[in-house]
């Protein structure tokens, strides 16, 4: 588990914010919200399998479910 995942998320967040500003200046509000949504989906896909791995290791560690 290395730390570059956090930098990836920070990068995606910043880029979405910048694209948002540009689209807002170009009066394309609806596309701006769509780009934010796209960025969010990308990051969520990145996170989902990490959290699945976390819950699996917790399950084996504590013998929960």
């Amino acid at each position, binding site marked *: 588990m290395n*730390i570059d995942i956090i930098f990836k*998320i920070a990068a995606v*967040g910043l880029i979405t914010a910048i694209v948002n500003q540009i689209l807002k200046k170009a009066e394309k509000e609806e596309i701006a919200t769509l780009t934010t949504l796209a960025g969010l989906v990308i990051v969520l896909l990145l996170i989902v399998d*990490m959290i699945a791995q976390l819950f699996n290791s*917790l399950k084996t560690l504590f*013998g929960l479910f």
Partner: protein
Amino acid sequence: MTQIAQICLTGIITALCVLILKQDNPTFAILATIVGSVLLLFMIIDVATDIFHTVDDFLQSSSIGGGLSFILLKILGISYLTDFSAGIIEDAGSKSLADKVILAGKFIILGVSIPVFKMLIDVITNLLQ
């Protein structure tokens, strides 16, 4: 020694990334906190497994500790999970939701530890007779 340094640095770097992300879009800040806490957990998992194995051996050897170690581990896991998610929910800003998650966790822990109470009462009744 390096492991604790690694953990502290990851925490600081995650906090900085969260701060950077907070101005532009707060949603990504919450996602960064989630990933940061998952990373920190993965770092301590191997240490935790060794500790739990040793604790398990102690409890197995003791006379009454047979079923206790399983329940103890379960309670520990449940409390950690609820604390983990309640913290993230609180970061996301909805404090009342976090309190409800904690309340639910308490009830589940109570449910899991019912056999321990029964064992305690049996021991007491045996003593009294």
